[in-house]
Each structure stands twice: as C-alpha cells, then as structure tokens.
C-alpha cells in the first residue's frame, strides 16, 4: 500500500512538530566472513549493533523549540547510578513505528534573509522499532513560522574580531558524540556515554578583514528571533566561543563574502550543581583543643592516608 506524506505522523517525546521531511534509516554493521584461501563469501557476521538514525527538518514556531532543549539537557544530568549521564531520552514515532531511546546527535539551522527558520535534526537510536506502519489523518494547526526578517544579533565579541555592521547569512550547528556501551552477549546497549559536544556558528558579515591570530579571537554571538510585529524574543541561539577561521571569497557575478566560523565546546553558559557533600575540615598540628567530631587534624589525616 502506498501512503501520502500527509498521513504519516512524526512525533518526538509526544511533541508534534511541523516537519517538512523525515528519513528513518536502519542499518546493520555486517561484514563478510572469508574463509582462508577464498575471495568470495556468502557468510556475514555482525561487527557492531544496529545503528539507526531519524533525520528530519522542521519549522521553528517560536514556542521554544522542544528539539533544541535536548542540546542543553542531553548528557548533562547524572543518572541514579551516578555513572550514566543520559539526561533526556527521546522517544519517537514515525508513522506508528516507535523507538524509546533516541539521542540528538546533530541540530543545524540556516538563517537566510527573509526566509523561514528551518532546523535539521538527526536522532540516533539503538533499540529495535516497535509497532506497525499506520496512517493518521490530522488537521495542521495554524502556526506562525519564525522568519529571519525578525532576527537580531547580539555581538559581544572581542574588539579584535573587527567591526561588523551587517549580518548577511548565518548557520548554527550542534553536534554531539553518542556512544553506545554494549555488554558481552547483548545486541542492544546497556547505556550510552556522551563524547565531545560542540556548537559552531558560521556568520557571513560585511567588512572583510584578514586579522586572524594563531590562538583565535573571542567571539560571542547570540541570535534572537521574534514573531512578526513583535519585539519579544521567543527563541535564541548562542555561541560564545572562539573565532576558528575566517574566509573571504569572490565569485564572478556575485558579492564578496566574508565568513566567520566560531566554535565552542562548552555550549552551556550555566554550571550544573549536582549536589553538595561535606568533607572533613583539615586541622593544623597543635590545634587539638579545637578538635571537633567533624574535623580531622592534618597529622592524623596523614597517618590515616598512610
């Protein structure tokens, strides 16, 4: 049976999104097994678990994008075992096919003048899909799509980055390493550990300049978006990092472009306080009279350690 795209619903964590396209890819990691002296094989073995991805593009409507919240929360919260740091796990459904342990691995946006804001996301998951392919019939909600006409930039970069008057184009890109941990004898991971996370911003600006120190320049940019006819910011994207590169290009029949690339590997500006534990206060020698039960003299502390 053939289905139309308007009947295939995509939802993530029970949140409806206005997706323009979605692609669900399931792939095994099988390699051919060769016997000695043979160069042909019909036998395959799995060298790794399933690697599945859900890629989709969706319009931003200004109600603080739910997908974007995974950037801050994912991998930043400790699990109950004090080791795992899964944070928010994404459950998803695409046409009735569901997964329960997805993780956002990339999230990119392109900002072009007078264009609607569309985010491209990739979610990886390692469990099997449940359910069957079913079609739905739903009316689309009336939404106002965020537009790059209503965009403002906050630039608190170092002066050395140069004077910037006009922002012509911009991109925002988040990537995160997602690594499954398998126990021997299992085909689905026991847990996930997160590798490096980075946020990069590419900005096309005016005033071409070639100043580029070997250790970069502090570059702090914040993109604010509001709705038509309103000055209230309803969405923002921040990259407080370092200028990694700048490029100037010229093509026949087009303007000279000057592109800045800023990157940060600490995308969150807040510090996570995971709890407070009391520790013994050191006591200097000769301060026995001040000894209390919750303090340990330094000499005793040394002997305890020995």
């Amino acid at each position, binding site marked *: 049976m053939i289905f139309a795209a308007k009947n295939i619903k995509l939802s993530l964590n029970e949140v409806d999104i206005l997706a323009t396209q979605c692609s669900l890819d399931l792939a095994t990691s099988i390699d051919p097994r060769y016997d000695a002296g043979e160069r042909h094989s019909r036998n395959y073995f799995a060298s790794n678990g399933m690697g599945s991805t859900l890629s989709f593009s*969706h319009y931003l409507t200004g109600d603080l994008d739910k997908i974007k919240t995974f950037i801050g929360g994912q991998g930043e919260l400790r699990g109950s075992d004090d080791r795992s740091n899964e944070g928010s796990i994404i459950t998803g459904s695409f046409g009735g096919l569901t997964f329960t342990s997805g993780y956002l691995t990339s999230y990119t946006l392109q900002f072009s003048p007078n264009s609607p804001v569309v985010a491209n996301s990739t979610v990886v998951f390692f469990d099997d899909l449940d359910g069957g392919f079913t079609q739905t019939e739903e009316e689309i909600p009336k939404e106002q799509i965020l*537009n790059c006409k209503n965009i403002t930039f906050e630039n608190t970069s170092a002066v050395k980055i140069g004077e910037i008057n006009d*922002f012509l184009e911009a991109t925002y890109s988040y990537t995160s390493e997602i690594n499954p941990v398998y126990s021997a004898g299992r085909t689905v991971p026991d847990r996930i550990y997160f590798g490096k996370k980075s946020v990069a911003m590419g900005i096309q600006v005016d005033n071409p300049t070639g100043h580029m120190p070997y250790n970069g320049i502090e570059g702090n940019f914040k993109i604010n978006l509001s709705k038509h006819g309103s000055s209230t910011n309803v969405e923002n994207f921040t990259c407080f990092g370092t200028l990694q590169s700048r490029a100037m290009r010229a093509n026949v029949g087009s303007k000279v472009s000057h592109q800045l690339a800023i990157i940060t590997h600490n995308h969150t500006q807040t510090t996570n306080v995971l709890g407070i534990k009391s520790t013994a206060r050191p006591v200097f020698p000769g301060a026995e009279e001040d000894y209390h039960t919750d303090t340990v003299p330094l000499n005793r502390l040394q002997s305890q350690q020995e």
Partner: protein
Amino acid sequence: MASIRYDQIPLTIQYGSRTEKILAYDCSLSETADLQPVYSIGKKGVAEQTPQGARTASVSFSYTPVLTGITNEKFKSKGDYNIINGVADELKTTKASQSFGVSLMFGGISGEGLLTSYSVSLEPYAPVQCSVNFELFGSGENIPASGELKAQSLFRSPASDLASKVGHSAYSSFMTAQSPATITSSDETGILKSVNYSINFNYEPVYKLGQEFPSTFLYHSATEEARLMENVYETGIAFTGKSEKFHLDVKSIDNNNTISVNMENPVLMSTQLRVSSNGVAETEKTIRSFY
C-alpha cells in the same frame, strides 16, 4: 464609481538632476509578495503562507522618446536626449559596483527602481519605440512602491513639439554590423529592414538578516544585443567571433537632437536566412556585447 483615465496618470522619471515626463503608450506596475505554503508531514492543510523573500515590484512601459532637450550637461556632451538611454549608457560603462536607482512616479505611486532592461526598435518611416523594465526592491525600511493611485493634472505638451521632436527613423543613421550588407560579386546593396536593440543589466540586491529590503545593490554586468533584419545574406560567421561595429544615431524628426547607442566590440553571434512563398528572402543577424 471611481475611474481614472490614461491621460490622468503621467509617468515621470527622475535621475540625478534630470526630470522627464515620458510619452508612454502603456505602463504597468506589478507588486509581488514572496509567500509559500507551509505543509507538514502527517498533517492535512497548511499552517500558514509564510514569507520566503522580500516584497518586490516592477514597472515596465513602452514609449517613443521625445527629444525635447536636456538639463544635464553630462548627457549633452554625449548628444543624448533620452533619459533612459542616458542611464543605460552610463551604467553599462561604469566601473563602480554600487548602483543607484531611478525615481519613478506613476499616477501618485512612486518608487526607486533599477533599470533591468531597455530595448529600442527601429523600422523604416516609423517613430522609434522603446521598452523599459525597472525592478523596485525598496531599500532599508522603504517599501518598493509607495503612495496611492490618484488622478494627476493632465500632461499637455505643444503638439508641434511632439510632432517635431519624437525620435524617428527618417533621419537616423546606422553603422550596424556592416548593414545593409552587399553581395560582393555584383556589388548590390541590400535593404536594412529593422533594428531591434536591447540591453539587460544584472544586479545583486544585498539583503541582511533582520531587514526585509536590501541594504545595498551591486551592479555586476550587462548583456547587449542587436538583431538586424535585412534582405541580403552575408555569409562568414567565424568560430572565434567576427568583430562588428554598431553605432546607432536616432534623430528627432526635425533632424536636430539625437540619442546614440554604441555597442563596444560587438561580435556576430548568429545569422539566419529564411524565405517563404510569395515573399523575398529575409536575413537576420545577431550581434552581442558584454560589459
């Protein structure tokens, strides 16, 4: 019921210190909002029609140039009595990349436009006909076209002026790609039946984030083309391009004022010979210049 007659909607063009009312046959103003429907997978209908680009407008008109005189010495030195021809001539040879618009006023509606195409059509014993298109992009906070349609005072000019000052082919002279061609063996010269000249300009409006209308315009290049109809076929198109000359002087019917069109280093691009029953053979050759 309100209605406005054609003679109550004058078309006026201003460029620099020069202002001219145009003797236009027709004029059209088009405004466009770039809206696209927002569909979503899994949903029926559209969320909204959302903007994909800035609003734009265009003004196009056809006219016969009235060569009544000029106020700008810069144009006079070129013997140029047609404001559009003056703009085109200045623009195609400029080395500057920043481009500035021409003010257009059309029955109470005004805007600033960039000349994107201009063509001149010449036939024997006929007034010159020009066609022009301007693109209006707006700028900064200014919308492309503002104002409202209102009847204007009637545009009257002394009939004798109009009759004697219109550009006409009668006294015009041509040096157009060696046309009319000659049949070399018998040294017979053909007849040049018509000239269709056109020039198109390429601009790049530079939009910035957070602003609907462009902050500046860049002029990149121009393509100039002339198609010449005659009745003698001139063979000899060259692989590397045959160099030609094109200089057109269109004079007023009183043989006084002139508009000049000069193509720089044109090259013969194509020739065509066609004949049909009950007719004489017709040839067309096309020459082009690029700036």
